[in-house]
């Protein structure tokens, strides 16, 4: 009897009581009849797969890994982890060239950045889009994020002396997006943290968190990156006693949760020090730090909580920070997936489903008609901007715009 009481099954799968609640919240199940849904793909399927791997269903690849099933499950079953772990364990098919390209954000960034103007021009060309559509099955209706000619890393490196002046220091895991596509977000973070008296340093060489590799069947490469990043994080956290902040909810979730749960890379010694910058800033303000805001600032903001932020349960920090800014008119959008899920929506076979999933969110944004949509995820940004025409900003960038620098 004691055994049964103290045994915890992997990903909590034996806790499932078959209540079907998760099926009501899976965005894919609503639009794709080929997908068996979280209950079947997760705990139900796991029982069969444990008997015989023959029961592995390739349709599991349609899972977005949005984790909404886990957030809804009243029994604490890690449904999405079960599904992703099954894909890692049983799906040995080689990833397609297209998937490898989409997943290699790091590599692509390094190659594309020096020739950014050319790459940006080329990916915007109709003929390139047609070619990518035909050859690689990357949907032609997608807008590719553009590459920045100068990386964030090189920008910050040139400022390391002025950052070192601050007594309090944090390290910043910027991620591929800030480094290659949108250094401005990193600059905004530095501006806000400096205003709080905190200097920003880079990690000793970070790599892509690996999220896109996990979902694209490249878990070995993902584990390699995980081990590399853990070493870099340890240097900052354990050796230097720093906290590490981030501006992307998906990178953060990946490093905090997916490393130990899916890739088997332990992070217990650094996990508590790895925070979204909005949480870090909120906690500083709560302890008495102050920011000076511009007089006459006004913005109507609709905040979308990205799926992975919802899973971490930290949307509240971004929300409270935005509400704190004088002159902000705030609306919390209904919790829903935008449909892009990283590289998922870029694939031709997923394009229609991706747009159908996001439809309710896009409609609500149009009804609210904000000046700007706030969101902590870069791929949601592409999706919402492309689908609604509204500008999407990271809460950190909004904060940077609202503060007065003496």
């Amino acid at each position, binding site marked *: 009897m004691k055994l049964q*009481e103290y045994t915890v099954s992997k990903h909590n799968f034996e806790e499932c009581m078959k209540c079907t*609640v998760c099926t*009501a919240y899976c965005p894919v199940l609503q639009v794709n009849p080929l997908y068996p849904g979280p209950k079947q793909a997760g705990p139900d399927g796991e029982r069969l797969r444990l008997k015989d791997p023959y029961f592995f269903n390739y349709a599991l690849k349609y899972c977005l890994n949005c984790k909404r099933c886990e957030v809804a499950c009243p029994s*604490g079953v890690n449904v999405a982890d079960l599904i992703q772990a099954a894909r890692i364990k049983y799906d040995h098919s080689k990833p397609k060239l297209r998937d490898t390209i989409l997943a290699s954000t790091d590599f692509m960034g390094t190659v594309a950045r020096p020739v950014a103007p050319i790459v940006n021009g080329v990916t915007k060309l109709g003929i390139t889009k047609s070619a990518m559509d035909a050859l690689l099955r990357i949907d032609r209706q997608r807008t590719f994020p553009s590459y920045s000619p100068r990386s964030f890393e090189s920008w910050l490196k040139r400022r390391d002396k002025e950052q070192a002046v601050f007594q309090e220091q944090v390290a910043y895991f910027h991620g591929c997006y800030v480094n290659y596509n949108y250094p401005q977000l990193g600059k905004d973070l530095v501006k806000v943290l400096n205003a709080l008296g905190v200097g920003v340093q880079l990690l000793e060489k970070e790599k892509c968190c690996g999220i896109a590799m996990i979902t694209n069947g490249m878990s070995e490469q993902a584990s390699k990156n995980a081990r590399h990043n853990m070493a870099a994080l340890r240097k900052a956290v354990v050796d230097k006693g720093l906290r590490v902040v981030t501006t992307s909810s998906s990178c953060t979730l990946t490093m905090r949760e997916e490393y130990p749960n899916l890739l088997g890379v332990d992070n217990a010694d650094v996990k508590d020090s790895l925070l979204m910058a909005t949480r870090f800033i909120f906690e500083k303000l709560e302890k008495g730090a102050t920011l000076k805001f511009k007089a006459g600032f006004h913005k109507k903001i609709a905040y979308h909580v990205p799926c992975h932020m919802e899973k*971490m*349960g930290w949307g509240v920090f971004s929300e409270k920070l935005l509400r704190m800014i004088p002159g902000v008119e705030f609306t919390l959008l209904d919790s829903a997936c935008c449909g892009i899920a990283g590289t998922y929506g870029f694939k031709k076979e997923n394009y229609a489903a991706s747009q159908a999933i996001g439809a309710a969110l896009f409609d609500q944004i149009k009804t609210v008609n904000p000046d700007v949509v706030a969101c902590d995820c870069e791929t949601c940004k592409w999706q919402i901007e492309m689908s609604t025409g509204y500008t999407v900003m990271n809460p950190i960038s909004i904060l940077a715009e609202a503060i007065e620098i003496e």
Partner: protein
Amino acid sequence: MKFDTVIIGGGLAGLVAGISLQREGRGTAIVSTGQNALHFFSGTFESLTEAPQRMTDLFGEAGIRLHYRPGVRLMPMGTFRESALSLEDVDLFPSPEFARKVLIVNFMGYHDFFSSFLAEGLEKQGMQCRIRLINLPEMDKLEQSPSEMRSVQIARTMDRIWEKVVQEVRVLLKDEDAVLLPQVFGLQDTAVPGRIRQGIPARVVFAGTLPPSVPGIRTQMLLKRRYEVLGGTYLMGDEALNAHVHEGVVHSIVTKNLDNHYLEADHFILASGGFFSKGLRSNPFNITEPVFGLDVEYNQDRNAWYDKAFSADQPYMQYGVKTDETLHGLSDGKPFKNLYAIGSILGGTRPELGSGAGLAVRSAFAAADVILSEAKNLE
């Protein structure tokens, strides 16, 4: 983070308490491990014999209309149960014989609606029944995967194509004076059940399906939205692990997602549900309340916890946490000064508050009133 009141559990009890407090300007947060018993809610408040004005107001402001008419309601298996108050789209009849002839309509391939049991039950009451299936091309997609033929998936489609159902039913209808349809309408668009009733020239009755319950999920969504519009902070998917308590006063709780960031408050409400929701936990030896370690009322003899007859009233359903008259939770017999227990975590131990959904609503109001009677500290 500091609030006036932190509520643990975001089901019916937690949401009603949260809305009542937000409405009076108290800043609250709700922490909820996951979704809740509303997903199985049939849509009637059997234990309430009247319709308290403040309840109809609170639901009305959230966009949920209630319907008061003492009588009986139809159960999913064709039996009837006494009830006086329900969601607007759940019918209440003065007596079980609500029609002469009934047309029961189901969708092809949908197995979570028990048409033949319903027919049997209605025929016992002297009503004649005819069962018909309809097949809409829009539902072919759903049929490809059996896990999709569930109430919620169908309801999503029905929000768009309900007019076709009306047309089909009108064609099938002969001399029946009532039509029975599965409860799969009005998930997002709450006007749909009413429009269907208008469109069909017979009395339209929506009967329960297997879970998830469409009217229940709709109720959950609307109450949550109302709570958030009033400025409440709903932390979905987070779990209260334990509390910091000093001399009978709760100062803060620790949650799974916020780890070392504690939720502080002047008042705490425990609305974490029964065994189903893990508000109460049992193991082969005892029954506990995991967050505060409140005293639990239960029989020490484990064999007395259950009745072997599956459908009998199970004794464990009566078990719940102990409180004083004003719902303060007890630990070793002594009340916490600022902790209230509401909803199904009370078990059947407070019969004066009713049972099930009625208990959730009434105890939520009662706890909110005690909190509101105390001065507000926090702006």
